[in-house]
């Protein structure tokens, strides 16, 4: 596959956007979406590499990542609801009871 580099560059860009988003955004849900974007950038890398190398390990890995991301989303959103119930906000600047 000639354009492997293209896929890798795209996923590196997606990963970087996700990373920057985690660092600059304030809303916990948006931060979580940025994390999901990082994970999907990883998925894209895995699929592109798997196709390039001609073995399926990478694609199997992607299934595991997707499953785990779903489990993480369930737990993470539940934690956000618990926080919102007590604080009426999910802004990370309001997580200031202890020094961040």
């Amino acid at each position, binding site marked *: 596959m000639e354009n492997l580099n293209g896929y890798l560059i795209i996923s590196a860009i997606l990963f970087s956007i996700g990373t920057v988003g985690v660092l600059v955004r304030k809303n*916990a849900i948006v931060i*979580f979406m940025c994390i999901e974007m990082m994970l999907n950038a*990883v998925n894209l890398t895995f699929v592109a*590499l798997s196709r390039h190398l001609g073995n399926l*390990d*990478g694609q199997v890995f992607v299934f595991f990542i997707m499953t785990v991301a779903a*489990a993480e989303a369930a737990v993470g959103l*539940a934690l956000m609801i*618990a926080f919102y119930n007590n604080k009426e906000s999910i802004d990370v600047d309001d997580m200031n009871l*202890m020094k961040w």
Partner: protein
Amino acid sequence: MEALSFQQALQQSILSANLIPILPEILLSVLAMVLLLVNVFAPAGQKSYLNYISFFGIVVTGILVAVGWGGHIESFSGSVVLDNFATFFKLIFLVSAGLAILIADQYMEREGCNHGELYPLILFTVVGMMLMASGTDLMTIFLGLEVMSVSLYVLAGFNRGSIKSNEAGLKYFLLGAFSTGFLLYGMALIYGATGTTRIAKIAVQVGQMSLPSANIMLLAGMLLMLTGFAFKVAAAPFHMWTPDVYEGAPTPITAFMSAGPKAAGFAAALRIFLVALPTMQVEWSQVFWVLAVLTMTVGNITALRQDNIKRMLAYSSIAHAGYALVGFAAGNPTGTAGILFYMLSYSFMNIGAFAIIILVGKKGESNGTVQDFAGFGVKHPVLAVAMSIFLFSLAGMPPTAGFIGKFYLFSGAVQKGYIWLAIIGVLNSAASVYYYLRVMVYMYMKDSTEEFDWMQLTVPMALCVAIAVAGSLIPGIVPSFILQFAQQAVRLI
């Protein structure tokens, strides 16, 4: 033709699935699921027996794990292995989980959040950690790490009514998931550079490269994975979440998190870096050198000015990760056996100290500053002696386990030629004596009107303190006994 080969492949994979290496994991998972069900049908307010059942389960699993010592069985076509390295770490996880379960009941009852789900979650965490220690495929290690982390996110935010606990859970979740992203990206790039996720095969592929560090993909993958693990073991500069999470989480969970999952992070990192990437040791040991120095120094210096004792122990736990990283930077048998030894003794002394903190604390996590220990030594001489042993061991004074552990970690660094690393480590260790002894000064030399009459020393609590005292003293007095096991464990990987 294709169908036949598929059938053959299926048969082969079924035949290669030897369940013996993951028997402890299966036992604990089944127990955890049964306990979840029992918890649903049990009458409210009578959940203490879940505590005893899970402790019993931990003990049985511990025996099962210990029986496997000396064996070497690969299973699931080489993605899980039973070897001494995995066995040693599994025992560390079981020790930390068992001690945490012993101290959990009283605390959770006091804080009014004694929900039965606590114990299954702790058991699932242990299952995840065990998979991390025995995984020999990046996929297995990742899955184990996530089983561990997802359970820990819930545990950190377990006290739903307390906003501090909510905050701890959410912060841990956001930063934990963030670090998982780095770890996975690293794994993806290593897969790209070597074409496999099996650790043994990666080692073969990397070994064939004439100059592995010239392979940008491999190097970037290694560094990203290193970042992910540095987050998990709370190494500076990736330690920012640790004090907040440790302070906010329920105290038994903090005790557990600072011992077990940290050891699990080291287990997985040791296997990946020592087995898969030994030819790149020059590169990664430099990174670990810097991480170790930063982690020790940042942890100790910030711990000096903490009044909240939980937060102080959180920073101290960062510093201890730094000591273990010294052994990692050395990367030789002495240093790595030192990590195993240190993680085991750290579990005992740290959870013991947290047990005393739970005893002294009052409802709502009040009474948790260093000053609140004033007069404790006069009112409760036995418990104060126990606390002193834990603090001495954490500070690394002979004849405690903490001293021997540090001794081996630093001598590993000296053998490798990292004299300065060992010197910085010893200086740090000397600085840490200040904040540990400060607690003891308050215990013995300050007067207080407090009678400490709210304290109840329940049987599990007393058992935990007794085990922890034994665990922080015996390895210090007869170190060769445990150390020979640690050395055997690192010889095989």
